[in-house]
């Protein structure tokens, strides 16, 4: 596809200095079959040795070179190989020539300038200032002109646009670009995916808190007890809210352990359910006061020792521990 051409300029170095421009290789694109609007790339490889450096500020700048040719971009990279410095220059051109027939045109040549810090000119000129005069032109090379054949794009009818012509220019021109509607299918899919993610996250939260669909979730007796006690308290109308609350919590213990739990079983229960160990003193006092309440006549004392508010808090703590563990 791309033919390449290497042009080697062997250039003399200034008296005795080892610095030199060893080669300028130009890799050209094809030279024919170009149209209006085509872009083409030329690669220039400059090999220097010693202290010779390419004077990069003197390279052509992107922009219009001639009325029919733009330099779109120029990229410069530098690498070292076996003590030689290799500059890779990539030039990208775009053609804007409207040909009537196949036509030869030249991309103009341009000079490459170099600086050599070792060879200061006799008159003390700064070394960074390349001067053809003081160095006899030895420190410059040329990227040659490139001759291209540019082809016409269409058949041009000469009386296309004569004032007395009958046809309209719209018949010759290509139609306008039409705006495209945005494709909504991927967005709909994204919405569907995010909706299912949202539903999943919601279900996880419901499961975690054992709310509605998971309200009957097994192994959550304390959560249910907590909920019941709270509704009992907010209702406040029960015959004996304290008694009911005690019973509810007892049933929760029973359900959690899988058998009846009495005051004497508390240490064993806590040993089996390590997560409740921090609540041990309160559990003990709960069971003691419940014993007092149910098996003696001193109900008042029991309620004083472990009031209903403590009971509710204990149920809430148990429920929380249960949630975080299971």
């Amino acid at each position, binding site marked *: 596809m791309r033919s390449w051409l290497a042009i080697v300029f062997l250039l003399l170095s200034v008296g005795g200095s080892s610095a030199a421009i060893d080669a300028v290789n130009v890799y050209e694109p094809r030279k024919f079959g170009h149209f209006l*609007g*085509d872009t083409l790339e030329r690669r220039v490889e400059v090999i220097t040795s010693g202290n010779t450096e390419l004077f990069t500020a003197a390279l052509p700048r992107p922009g219009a070179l*001639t009325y029919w040719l733009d330099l779109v971009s120029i990229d410069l990279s530098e690498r070292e190989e076996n003590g030689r410095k290799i500059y890779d220059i990539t030039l990208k051109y775009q053609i804007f020539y409207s040909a009537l027939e196949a036509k030869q045109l030249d991309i103009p040549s341009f000079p490459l300038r170099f600086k050599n810090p070792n060879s200061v000119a006799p008159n003390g000129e700064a070394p960074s200032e390349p001067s053809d005069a003081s160095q006899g032109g030895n420190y410059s090379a040329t990227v040659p002109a490139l001759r291209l054949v540019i082809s016409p794009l269409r058949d041009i009818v000469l009386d296309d646009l004569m004032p007395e012509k009958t046809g309209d*220019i719209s018949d010759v021109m290509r139609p306008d*670009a039409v705006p495209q*509607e945005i494709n909504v299918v991927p*967005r709909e899919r994204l919405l569907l995916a995010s909706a299912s993610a949202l539903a999943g996250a919601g279900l996880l*939260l419901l499961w975690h808190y054992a709310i509605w669909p998971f309200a009957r979730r097994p192994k959550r007796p304390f959560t249910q007890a907590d909920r019941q006690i709270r509704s009992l308290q907010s209702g406040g109308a029960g015959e004996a809210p304290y008694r009911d609350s005690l019973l509810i919590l007892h049933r929760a213990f029973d359900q959690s352990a899988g058998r009846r739990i009495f005051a004497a079983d508390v240490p064993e229960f806590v040993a089996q359910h390590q997560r409740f160990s921090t609540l041990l003193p309160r559990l003990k006092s709960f069971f003691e006061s419940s014993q007092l309440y149910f098996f003696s006549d001193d109900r008042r004392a029991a309620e004083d020792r472990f009031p209903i508010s403590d009971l509710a808090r204990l149920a809430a703590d148990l429920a929380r521990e249960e949630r*975080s563990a299971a």
Partner: protein
Amino acid sequence: MRLNSILTFLAPQRGTAFWILAAASVLWFGYAADSLISARRSNDNIRLLVERHDVPIDVKRAHPQEILARIDESVRRDHIDDAQSILSIAGDRLPPSVRAAALYNIANTRTRMAAEAVRKGQIDSATAMINLAKSEYRLALKLDPESWDARHNLDVAMRVVRDFPQADNPDLSSPDAPKKLWTDLPGIPKGLP
């Protein structure tokens, strides 16, 4: 067994993790819903604009294709200045291909106007318009070199009025100079006539 131990380890943080997950999915859902709704609205606007309704759009937020439709509609109503100001406001936000398409449409309109001016014999205004159109085609081609329609119409525009590319600086090496078909014969006096 191993899964179980991981679950046990994660258990105390589970509530927090679920809440974070829920918050993230709410954000994602909101984003997806917003993008779908705005795309639908843009499509409505595009459809209306293509059907030649003069619908205003918010240039700062609109979708590139919506901006292109708006520019087209302004151009069709002979408000090229409006179209250009929309294009320059939207500017770099537009992808190169859409910018190229907008420039191409503007340049097409200018070319048609210039052809009309040529037909009426107003060569000067035609030349000015064609020069603008040519620079817009060139810019469009730089942004989107693969646009063959733009190449074709640039070629058309170049033939609408006669183009003297280097009238102020005649250059014999220019490709438009007459070909040297004859060798310079010796003995023919050069100089003043």
